[in-house]
């Protein structure tokens, strides 16, 4: 009787041990950190940068809050209007001008490239816009269509549409406002998308311009996932 109990308990103990290991393994699979010291350093640097940016954001918003609170009613309205204006500028609903670069996309000389019909695929434009944004472009417009966060670039019936407007005739002119146009220009020359354009028989040239004006985004912005909350 005693042996039996001990045997049962031992088996139960083993079972419990295995169960615990199984739970631990399935719930938190072991992840190995394979980064070396330089990768860790750069990751740390990046996190620090992020923190600094967040701190700046907090500071900015706190300042705004202070602004609202400290001023009288009329000033409050004024401050709010100013904030609204800032937001509109940021959203791309206003005209904007500044220094930047002018990118021109056109087919190569037909005699040289043969008779292949060059076409503008949305994927090309998308990649170019993504790369421009990565290289710290501030604002972009393609053939007079302002690119904002809600802009679409898509293929409809074999034609490329930007903001639901067809972009079919060459040359395509892209205006980009940037802090450092010269740097952006050299980055674009060396970029992946420039190579891709060449592969599609399209020539891409860019030049820095002192003064550019981008049109505002003209379509209404539909807000799908936001609702107004009533006070009180």
């Amino acid at each position: 009787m005693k042996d039996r109990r001990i045997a049962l308990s031992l088996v139960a103990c083993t079972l419990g041990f295995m169960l615990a290991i199984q739970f631990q393994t399935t719930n938190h699979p072991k992840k190995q950190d394979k980064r070396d010291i330089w990768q860790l350093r750069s990751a740390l640097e990046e996190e620090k940068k992020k923190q600094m940016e967040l701190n700046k954001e907090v500071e900015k918003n706190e300042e705004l809050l202070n602004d609202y609170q400290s001023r009288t009613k009329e000033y409050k309205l004024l401050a709010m209007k100013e904030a609204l204006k800032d937001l509109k500028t940021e959203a791309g609903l206003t005209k904007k001008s500044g220094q930047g670069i002018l990118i021109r996309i056109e087919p190569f000389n037909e005699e040289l490239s043969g008779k292949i019909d060059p076409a503008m695929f949305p994927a090309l434009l998308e990649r170019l816009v993504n790369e421009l944004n990565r290289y710290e472009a501030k604002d972009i417009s393609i053939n007079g269509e302002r690119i904002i966060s809600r802009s679409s670039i898509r293929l409809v019936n074999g034609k490329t549409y930007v903001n639901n407007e067809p972009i079919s005739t060459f040359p395509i002119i892209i205006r980009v406002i940037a802090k450092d146009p010269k740097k952006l220009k050299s980055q674009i020359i060396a970029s992946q998308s420039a190579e891709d354009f060449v592969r599609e028989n399209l020539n891409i040239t860019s030049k820095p311009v002192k003064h550019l004006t981008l049109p505002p985004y003209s379509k209404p912005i539909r807000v799908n996932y936001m609702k107004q909350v009533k006070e009180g």
Partner: protein
Amino acid sequence: MWLPVFGLIIGLVLGYLTDIRIPPDYTNYLSIAVLAALDTLFGGMRAHLQGTFEDKVFITGFFFNILLAGGLSFLGVQLGIDLYLAAIFAFGVRLFNNIAVIRRLVMDKWTNARKNQ
């Protein structure tokens, strides 16, 4: 009767405290081993209630079942067949059978005890 429960708790605590984790590729084997252990445990409880318990059978059954199930799934991996499903099926069916028998035996005991009162 409380000793096995105590053992189970000790095993769980030990397992959590040691913080051992096995590679994800081997979780299949471990789960089968857990199933085999469960099967043996419930088989042992049933034998205990029926009065046919034997230490040697119990202990050898425990290790042999685990080894067999592990070996079968290993063979399955080598052959490209999910042979571990066979082990899971066999143990699952036996588990249900054993638990059903245990339930009946416990209920019988309980009703007998009430009648005798």
